[in-house]
């Protein structure tokens, strides 16, 4: 038990948690934007997965930043597909999202087999690149706390820093810019912005595109930093956890950050625990984030419902 505590308190664990949180946070922010615009994006999982594969394949032929952008673009394209089918062709958005997940699960394996010449499991034969860690070792010259700062802040992926910045940027966009107000209005009560002349469907379509792009970016981080290379179903439910994190984070960017950190911490724990306790069943540890999501979702929904009741609003 003491070893576990020592591990959790160590800066290495902190770095692990940041690493595991980053893809989740990016996907959660994507889910947040779509959810606030009134379109539940259940395709986060598929968009992440396609982002992973695209990034890996592009990174074989191009520099790492091009690959990251390709992953982002792949997610955005899937977001656009969702928007076209859900908004223009009036399909149910949840079914559209699931169709994209199914397409991603099968399509990535298919594309992987084509790209590697028959290997349907991993991209181990492809010489893919990684996102270089950001080196902040110059902070070490600061007297006293320098070494601590280096061990905490140095060596993260660029995307971790971008994700942290995005939390602030999205908060600013949503609560300090007119477009953010539009977006929230469209999700809250579409008839009002419609009457005010705001193009409701266009706002929703853009939200879905941005949502997909963020999920794709999360996929790029997963396949080019957390793991280098692609493996089938490597997202392993992270997109769905992100969906839970949106609801858990009270549909607010800072809440999303905290929720993503919570799940990232549990994922990090699942990484380090088997090393510490040889007899701890890995399956049960992997189960923890999912159990936590359900419990947290129930707790949060209960609180939200009670808050509505206290305000005298009858829940639908």
């Amino acid at each position, binding site marked *: 038990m003491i070893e576990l505590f020592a591990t959790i308190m160590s800066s290495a664990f902190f770095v692990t948690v940041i690493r595991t949180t980053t893809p989740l946070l990016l996907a959660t922010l994507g889910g947040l934007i779509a959810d606030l615009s009134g379109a*539940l994006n259940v395709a986060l999982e598929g968009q992440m997965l396609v982002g992973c594969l695209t990034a890996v394949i592009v990174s074989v032929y191009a520099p790492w930043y091009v690959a990251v952008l390709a992953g982002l673009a792949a997610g955005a394209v899937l977001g656009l597909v969702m928007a076209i089918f859900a908004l223009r062709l*009036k399909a149910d958005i949840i079914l559209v999202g699931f169709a994209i997940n199914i397409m991603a699960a099968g399509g990535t394996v298919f594309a992987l087999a084509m790209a590697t010449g028959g290997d349907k499991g991993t991209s181990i034969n492809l010489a893919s690149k990684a996102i270089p860690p950001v080196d902040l070792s110059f902070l070490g010259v600061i007297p006293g706390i320098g070494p601590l700062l280096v061990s905490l802040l140095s060596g993260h992926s660029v995307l971790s820093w971008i994700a942290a910045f995005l939390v602030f940027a999205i908060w600013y966009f949503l609560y300090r810019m007119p477009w953010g107000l539009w977006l929230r209005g469209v999700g809250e009560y*579409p008839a009002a912005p419609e009457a005010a002349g705001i193009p409701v469907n266009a706002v929703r379509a853009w939200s879905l595109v941005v949502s997909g792009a963020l999920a794709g970016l999360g996929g790029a981080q997963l396949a080019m930093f957390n793991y280098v290379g692609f493996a089938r179903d490597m997202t392993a439910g992270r997109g769905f956890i992100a969906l839970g994190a949106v609801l858990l984070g009270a549909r607010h960017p800072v809440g999303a950050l905290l929720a993503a950190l919570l799940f990232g911490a549990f994922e990090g724990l699942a990484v380090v625990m088997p090393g510490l306790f040889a007899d701890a069943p890995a399956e049960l540890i992997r189960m923890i984030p999912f159990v936590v999501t359900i419990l947290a979702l129930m707790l949060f929904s209960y609180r939200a419902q009670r808050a509505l009741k206290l305000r005298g609003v009858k829940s639908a």
Partner: protein
Amino acid sequence: MSTTAILARQSRWSTFRKETLRAVTAIAVALLVTIIVVLLTSKAPLEALNTLLTAPASKPRTIGLWFDDVAKLTVTGLAFSLVFQARQFALGVQGQIYVGALASSYVALSPIGPTFAAIPLGIAAAMLAGAAWGFIPGLAKAKLGANEIVSSLMLNYIAIELCNFLVRVQLRERPGVLTSLKFPDAAVFPPLIPGTRIDLGLILALVATVLVWFALYRTSWGLKLRLVGHNARFAEYAGIKSSLIMVSAMTAAGALGGMLGAMFVQGQTYGKITVLFEGGLAFEGILVAIVARSRPLAVPVVAIFYGYLRQGAQLMNIRTDVPAEVIGVVTAIIILLVSSSFSMPGKKWLSAQFGRRAQPAGLSADGAAK
């Protein structure tokens, strides 16, 4: 026959025609995409296509594989139809399959296993476990307002890990093997046609189809369920306890999912439990339910066609250089096309030529209010 009855029949017939046309078009588009993909990727495209389109019906063995798939697709399609008709997007069939399979495995490997009670008790245990797994997100939705999509998906992963864990630690045949002992013969579904995988599961699927149809269209529970799915608020005003109906629909669908778990592990295909035995079949039920428009009697028909395509893809995977995963793309296209209100290109022009009233063109405005 009264005028209303004739009108009702006419409208039913035209709906049926429209839905069939839509499904056929979607399948044609999907097939076209498959053909293009195969042509682009395969070294021997004609052989691959030939395998895809003819292999499942070629031998008794492959026909057996096909109908085994049909039975399973029917049950998962029915489970999704039930929740979709109540307009609940619970996606927990996968998890229900795993817990159901675990429950029936414990029955089959217990002292009951070699007795005649192994099959009925195994199915019953599986249905109970599945129902419990469907009940949790239902209750959380009804009592706490927790989003059923997220909670049911989380329960899927929990069930999969639970199965991995129990098979590795408790049910394994010997250390290091991720399968259980073979079930006793009495616990394995008897084959309907010897030497094939067509077993009791097919009968279970047909019985389930009739039961779900009866429950939905011939009982007051079914009427209430469809009302809740149509307009929950209206149903509430009509004095229907919509949350109770929602929970019961999700629990009933869970029982079906659990039964499917028993069909998997007690069927001729396995006769034992292994990790990850389900192979993503559960989610194919979404496609089946959507193409069948959640109508129980249409579910087996769709399952026959889709099962054929699935087996064709599997055989193509084995015999040629095209991976079976291409079917995922096909599935997605069919779901997208069938669930959206696409119309065939040139339809408006055609109807203008034939003097019928064209569809009103206010597509973008009214979707926002939804």
